[in-house]
């Protein structure tokens, strides 16, 4: 009988200790220690200097909100959209914000990339500029002139769409393919007559004696931003993508209502005068939303134009590279 009660005591105390440890472990999960360091999944987002993601990163809200959901966000800066799509395809980043042409080029080249979200319209800031002193006031006057653009970027699409609209062919003008920086230099030194550019370069040129001859609105070109992901990652992380869109759109709303903060931030990041940034952000609206049919049609138009011009080897079906999500 004595032996028996001893055994019972052992079992009872053992279970008491186990219960104690379970409760303590539950407590551990409630603390910051238990929540954060242990199972935080790192997600990497690629971006370009001065874009929407840079605003989000500087604001910090996105990182905080996703941390609360168990994700550790790392922002990676790239120098070109092409580099971003490459990094996406190789899996070294999970999401990327690019312009509208890099994903078209990448998909045409066979990269497995998926559109996750669409940005706001930037048609006011993308266009063709000439110097006021040149006397050119109409698009038709560009015949025979030298136009600087950058191959397989928004500027190529824009210039092709513009020429087409005004009944000009690419042989009616002299198209000069230059890197964006080189194009600006060539234009300012008078080596070319016109330049196709986007903000903030457009705003900068406008504020230093150039006229915006035509902009995106003339050719129905919105020159949107996109959030992209690799196809496999997108398939497996739908809820994360939804969160990302939700939080990004919150950041964009913030950006729309905090222009003075934004001007300071972007002029610092881009090394551009505040007046330039002011013009830029005053004529655009920041936004991110799940991919829309309209946006896909725009991208398909880019793809078709590029294919016809021989810029890309295949004409990809953009709509089969889209993840339609609903975000509330």
């Amino acid at each position, binding site marked *: 009988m004595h032996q028996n009660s001893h055994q019972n005591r052992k079992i009872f*105390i053992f279970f008491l200790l186990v219960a*104690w*440890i379970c*409760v*303590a472990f539950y407590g*551990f999960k*409630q*603390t*910051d*220690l238990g929540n954060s360091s242990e199972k935080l999944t790192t997600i990497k987002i690629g971006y370009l200097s001065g874009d929407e993601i840079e605003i989000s990163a500087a604001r910090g809200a996105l990182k905080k909100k996703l941390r609360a959901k168990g994700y550790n966000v790392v922002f990676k800066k790239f120098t070109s959209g092409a580099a971003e799509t490459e990094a996406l395809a190789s899996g070294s980043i999970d999401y990327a914000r690019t312009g509208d042409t890099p994903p078209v080029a990448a998909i045409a080249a066979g990269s497995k990339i998926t559109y996750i979200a669409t940005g706001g319209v930037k048609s006011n800031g993308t266009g063709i500029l000439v110097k006021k002193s040149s006397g050119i006031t109409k698009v038709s006057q560009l015949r025979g002139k030298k136009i600087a653009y950058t191959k397989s970027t928004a500027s190529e699409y824009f210039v092709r769409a513009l020429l087409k609209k005004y009944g000009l062919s690419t042989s009616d003008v002299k198209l000069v393919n230059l890197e964006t920086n080189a194009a600006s230099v060539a234009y300012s030194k008078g080596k070319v007559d016109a330049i196709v550019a986007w903000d903030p370069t457009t705003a900068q040129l406008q504020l230093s004696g150039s006229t915006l001859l035509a902009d995106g609105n003339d050719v129905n070109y919105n020159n949107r931003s996109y959030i992209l992901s690799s196809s496999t990652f997108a398939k497996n992380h739908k809820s994360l993508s939804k969160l990302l869109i939700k939080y990004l759109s919150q950041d964009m709303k913030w950006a729309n209502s905090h222009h003075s903060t934004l001007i300071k931030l972007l002029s610092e990041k881009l090394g551009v005068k505040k007046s330039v940034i002011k013009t830029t952000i005053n004529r655009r609206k920041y936004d991110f939303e799940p991919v829309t049919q309209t946006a896909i049609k725009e991208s398909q138009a880019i793809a078709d134009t590029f294919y016809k011009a021989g810029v890309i080897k295949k004409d990809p079906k953009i709509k089969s590279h889209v993840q339609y999500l609903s975000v509330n």
Partner: protein
Amino acid sequence: MTKSTFKKKFLPWLLPIVIILFWQLAVQLKWIQSEFLPAPTEVVQTAIVDWKKGILQKNISISLFRATCGFVIGGGMGFILGLLSGTSKLFRKTFDSTIQMLRTIPNMALIPLVVLILGIGEPAKICFVALACLFPMYINTYHGITSIDPDLLEMGKSYQLNTVQMFKQIIFPGALPTILMGVRYALGTMWTALIVAETVSADSGIGYMSTNAQQYVDVKTIYLCIIIYAFLGELSNYIAKNLETIFLEWRNSARSLTEE
């Protein structure tokens, strides 16, 4: 037999029950102001409300986590240091006086330093509890080992036990009663240190609940916290006592089988 079990099991509970009943009565009959002494039923209600909100479980479990962690780390370190001091003369000469000196520093005096070095997060609180558990465990382990019957050690020597056998058969079991006393004592200091740590800087735990309630003059919650502390203290004491009974079975073996 039944009379003795009644005495053993129920008598200790009699006084607390009477006190609580009297307390309830006193508040209900307005003998005392319930402003500073809420009725036990009110405290129970607060407990139920907090439980439903999830506050109670969260804070209790977090406190328990901090206490356990601190105890394991501090107690473990104290045990190991005590073991080294008890068994190695070189170690004892090098470290014992330093440890004894550190022991005399009041725990409260260390708060600013701990906060400065570790901030106010979990590590700081756990470190604080660990410091409080380290010294009792060290002292008792060390004392337990050094006060083992030298005759038994000589016996072990003459029976040519190797080092492992000496430790497992003689030194450790011989020191165990004192070590377990240290465990019991460390469990006591563990709760005291935790209350202090959670009162100084925390956003969760029973200590936080209590200081927070103090700011809003929420007397019921303060009483609830006191009761929880009392309960947790008693629980750990109960476990420690039972561990002694289990591990020191040989001490209880009565001389019931005597005969020649």
